[in-house]
């Protein structure tokens, strides 16, 4: 059995890669913003807001991402709400990662010592100023390692969008392989591209971590 690689695969895989990166960037940033508000709601709100945020997190962490994606793309279509595959993909994965990011943010915010809040309040800062200028700058530094994991995880997990017909890296690989039946070789190239991307992101975030590190906050690596 010989292995065959063709340079002509690369332009198409490259287009798929661009979509994968765009999809990841869109859903991870949507998840970060939503996740931050969810975490704050779970920590500081009471009553309905707290319950809603908690139910949200439980639902999206407690059900498979693929089911969520199908519910949004095919399920909503049954109600007459037709979303493009790209839009469905971003929404489903953004909503999903928001729940996980919310839990990471929550943990990091809780790890900031109570005395920090007392000191900020004693200066006359409002609760929101305290969160914005004292709690979050510390919590975001603490959350970065686990947040990096979530980013890498989402990057790989975007590959499920080929199931709703999106030509991402995985989808392009599948298209090429179904034409030439070189499944092993094509998927091997796809895997290597994912791996390269993961390594680049990991190193980039590590250098960000190093740049914003402050003595006495978090663990030294």
């Amino acid at each position, binding site marked *: 059995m010989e292995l065959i690689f063709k340079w002509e695969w690369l332009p198409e895989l490259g287009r798929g890669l661009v979509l994968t990166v765009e999809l990841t960037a869109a859903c991870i940033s949507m998840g970060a913003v939503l996740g931050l508000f969810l975490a704050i709601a779970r920590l500081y709100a009471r009553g309905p807001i707290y319950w809603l945020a908690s139910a949200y997190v439980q639902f999206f962490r407690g059900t498979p991402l693929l089911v969520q994606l199908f519910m949004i793309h095919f399920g909503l279509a049954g109600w007459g709400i037709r979303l493009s595959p790209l839009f469905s993909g971003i929404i489903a994965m953004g909503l999903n990662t928001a729940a996980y990011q919310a839990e990471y943010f929550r943990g990091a915010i809780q790890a900031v010592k109570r*005395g920090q809040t007392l*000191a900020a*309040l*004693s*200066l006359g800062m409002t609760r929101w*100023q305290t969160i914005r200028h004292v709690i979050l700058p*510390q919590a975001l530094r603490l959350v970065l390692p686990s947040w990096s994991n979530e980013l890498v995880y989402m990057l790989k997990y975007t590959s499920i969008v080929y199931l709703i017909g999106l030509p991402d890296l995985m989808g392009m690989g599948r298209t090429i392989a179904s034409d030439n039946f070189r499944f092993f070789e094509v998927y091997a190239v796809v895997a290597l591209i994912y791996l390269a991307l993961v390594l680049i992101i990991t190193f980039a975030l590590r250098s960000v971590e190093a740049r914003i590190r402050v*003595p*006495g*906050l978090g663990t030294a690596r």
Partner: protein
Amino acid sequence: MALLVVEDLHKRYGKEEVLKGVSFTLERGETKVIIGPSGTGKSTLLRCINRLTEPDRGRIWLNGEEVTSRRTNIYRIRAQIGFVFQDFNLFTHLTALDNVRLGLIRVKRMDKRAATERAKRELERVGLADKANAYPAQLSGGQQQRVSIARALAMDPKLILFDEPTSALDPELIGEVLQVMIELAEGGMTMLVVTHEMGFARSVADEIIFMEKGVIVEQGPPEVLFTNPRVPRTAEFLRKITEFYGESG
């Protein structure tokens, strides 16, 4: 009217009543020291004064304005009351300079340059001009506490509350913090200090308040309390604590 008036303050945590009706006043420029065994509500009392802890009952006035009133803007009141914590509570992610500057910029809305100048002056005042760019983790406990005093001073407080400011310090670092506090008292700052440093209490306080089990047992000038207390329990406590901590402070 006195600068600070505290009237019949009550606070309960679950079943335990920590403050059972505390009343006292503090005049401008006065330094009062609160002493008493641990767990008798001294820290709770300080936190009730700027409502970091909400009292259950009782009223507080600062400069004629009722702190405990629902209509009072508590943020504006807190900005006028400095608070120095036992474990410093400097903002971990900020340098000494930024720690002092934060309240000036965010609460007092000063522009950045003026705030920087002011913060530098305050750091100089506590002898830490050369540590402006150090992070809290890079400072000794004594230096951190001096930065936290500078942070309080920068806000131009009408009053500073000190909650056992030297209790978390190694013995050799206590002196530098007390020295700053002595200078403040001599400079006319109004201060309310919870401490076990009897030397400081004796030499600096205008009046000493002895608290136990949520009530004020006795208050009066240090000469009276240390030499001729009315209540036997005061004498007993002072004898014990002086044996344990020593006189020097």
